[in-house]
């Protein structure tokens, strides 16, 4: 795969987010976005005049609106600026992050702000997703973003009892993390003794995918400011460096459910992880990274994808969950923010991942800051029919 080293280093110097919630009747879209923009500018200690370029993104059709970047200028500050709009499905936020990095690294702009948002209360999420499929065939038979296939896979491989237990453990760990994050949308206060009850009684959505397993539908926005190495050092005391990122796309993925292990189709997460870590000389990602902010749309996927991203074998990923190594205080904390199951304003979601990872590197995450130093962070985006963006962040230059 053609990949060149960056033209110049890029650092994250400002991060802003709204409090994510199920409803924001008090603000329109531009006003909600502005809350994140304002927080990012304040975090960086910058004014809008300091920003050279904006990239704006969200999901197409989720609010049934078009070209929102036009009237969102009231909230984004785009007036008179270079502005781009991006939309790549669930990965939108992560693609925004990569695009901002590329725009600065290329030498085109010195300081760039990327903005992702979604106001899911205003549209029809599953209806919007349905319209993303091929209108002549797949649109009529697909089930929105919901599928029980991952649960089925885990149950087939590890047995019903263990698979259910691990998925619910993952769910409760995420809920406990969300409880520490004042910006998280849903924090139910789930307790360990609820596990069996929830496994038995939580309503099924599709197959074994239960309502408690699935991510929320949220309103929220996120903004991140990036600058060249020179500018970042001048403007910020604690820039977080974007070391590398990779995007792996694939065709519409309905052709991966044949359940024939002689022809197992590649999982893009694994393809991305292998390529990214290889070119950066990392052989044991679970040891190298100090925190991982993963795009985990359900607890089942969260568990399953640990194996792909960390290049683990057998049931090593299950053990990470069972031994609570993915909890804050564990060996490799995953989603100290509570992750996507807690907060999911979709166009912002995949940007919240690297944004939260940056806060962890800086030590500025607040109540959900992990207790040990964070020097190396990983963040992922997921979207479409199974494709991947994977991002590496560093506290120090000179890797």
């Amino acid at each position, binding site marked *: 795969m053609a990949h060149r080293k960056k033209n110049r280093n890029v650092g994250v110097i400002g991060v802003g987010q709204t409090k994510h919630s*199920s409803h924001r*009747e*008090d603000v329109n879209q531009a006003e909600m976005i502005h809350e994140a923009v304002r927080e990012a500018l304040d975090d960086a200690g910058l004014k809008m005049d300091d920003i050279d370029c904006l990239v704006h993104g969200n999901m197409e059709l989720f609010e*049934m609106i078009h070209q929102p970047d036009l009237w969102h200028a009231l909230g984004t500050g785009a007036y008179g600026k270079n502005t781009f709009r991006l939309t790549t499905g669930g990965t939108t936020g992560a693609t925004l992050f990569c695009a901002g990095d590329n725009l600065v690294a290329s030498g085109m702009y010195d300081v760039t702000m990327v903005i992702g948002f979604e106001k899911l209360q205003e549209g*029809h999420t*599953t*209806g919007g*997703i*349905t*319209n993303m499929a091929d*209108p*002549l*065939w*797949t*649109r*009529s*038979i*697909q*089930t*929105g973003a*919901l*599928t*029980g*296939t991952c649960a*089925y896979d885990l149950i*087939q491989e590890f047995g019903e009892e263990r698979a259910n237990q691990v998925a619910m453990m993952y769910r409760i760990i995420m809920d406990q993390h969300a409880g520490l994050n004042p910006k998280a949308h*849903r924090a*139910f*206060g*789930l307790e360990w003794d*609820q596990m069996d*009850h*929830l496994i038995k*009684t*939580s*309503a*099924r*959505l*599709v*197959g074994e995918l239960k*309502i*408690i397993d699935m991510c929320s539908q949220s309103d929220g926005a996120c903004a991140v400011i990036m600058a060249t190495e020179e500018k970042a050092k001048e403007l910020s005391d604690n820039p977080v460096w974007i070391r590398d990122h990779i995007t792996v796309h*694939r*065709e519409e993925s*309905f*052709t*991966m*459910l*044949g*359940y*024939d*292990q*002689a*022809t197992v*189709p590649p999982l893009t997460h694994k393809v991305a992880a292998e390529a990214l870590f290889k070119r950066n000389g990392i052989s044991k990602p679970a040891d190298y990274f100090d925190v991982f902010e993963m795009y985990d749309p359900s607890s089942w996927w969260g568990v399953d994808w640990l194996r792909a991203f960390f290049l683990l074998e057998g049931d090593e990923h299950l053990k990470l969950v069972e031994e609570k190594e993915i909890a804050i205080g564990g060996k490799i904390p995953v989603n100290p923010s509570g992750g996507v199951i807690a907060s999911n304003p979709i166009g912002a979601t995949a940007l919240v991942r690297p944004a939260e990872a940056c806060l962890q590197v800086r030590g500025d995450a607040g109540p959900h800051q992990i207790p040990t130093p964070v020097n190396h962070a990983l963040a992922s985006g997921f979207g479409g029919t199974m494709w991947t963006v994977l991002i590496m962040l560093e506290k120090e230059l000179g890797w």
Partner: protein
Amino acid sequence: MSEKFGVKVEDIFNTMEERFRPEGAEGVDASFGYDISGRGRWKLTVKDGSMKIEQTDDLGGCAAVIQADADTFVGVNIGKVDGTAAFTSGKLSVDGDVGAFGTTAKLFKRFTPPKKELTVGEYVLDMFGTLEARFQTGAAEGLDITIGYDIGGEEGGQWTARIKDGKCTVTEELVPSPSLTMIMKAKDWVELMLGKVDAVNLLTTGRAKVEGDMNLATKLGELFAKYTAPGEEEEEEQELLVLKKIISVNQKFATGPVMGKYLNGLKEKKILANKCRECGRMQVPPREVCALCRIRCDEFVEVGPKGNVRLLDTAYYASPDPLTGETRETPYGLIYILLDGCSGQEVFAHFLRDDQLDRIEMGWNEKKGTIVRPVWAEERTGKVADIKYFEIDE
């Protein structure tokens, strides 16, 4: 009684008749059970636009039974607890038909707790209890002061608000020599806070006394947001406008030669795949190219029509049909089939006959799943529904 919200579980049930909305009950003919832990069971029967509620342990014949604790049940009914969140987190569960239970949301007007007039003592406690929350950080910049409250009478008490570094801390005591002390009887304090009497009136009639920095006294209105009695917040809320619309756009899609050939095949009860001449992969429905080899696929092969099921994904929650906006009946089964002539991951997705959901075995590696066959529609125009569904081949 739900201690948390001050409303009895019985009140919710006893007011159901007066809150009943016949227009919301149109077409509903079912019984619903309520099992409120530690408080009892109730059965609601709705038929022909009327209803009956009874307290009974026999919840037989109910389409759905809701289980919750008193706080959750009351909270949901008075709008203080989000029903979806309670359901998702398992604090409220439904045994039986969840969809049917959803119809109960439209049956009743919301329960509004009767307004209870607070006693002077309760008001005083609530006013000081909410003082920190009503503090306005923005107005306190640079201030380092203490405000003493000496509220007389049996229902009174003494409090001090300490304002420093943009923070306000309230303690139940009177510290020595505050910057400002306000002295009055509990009853007058309550009337002042509720806006029934103004401060000048109280001061001129001698019912209230202020000691210390008088200038500070005039700033108090900025330092603390106006007190609102419990239950009155909602009326004070600004009206927030919302626009509800349905976007409706007619579309036309060109099939192109490849999808067109496939769809035309369906009209003749033929399922066509196309084969990549580089890697040999079959795609069904056919695609213009093999995305892996990046070459055009122009070799068509008839496959099926029978095949074995590799996966059954049972949907209990359905997306709306974009053509009609209507939602399918659930549960329904989406199946991934290896049609005869296909192998590996070359699956074909379609629906399963509704009454065969629990009779399907899924294939795994060499092991074949249940064999199914298509059931063709009488009239075929080249679309998904030309195959009504697949059914077990028996």
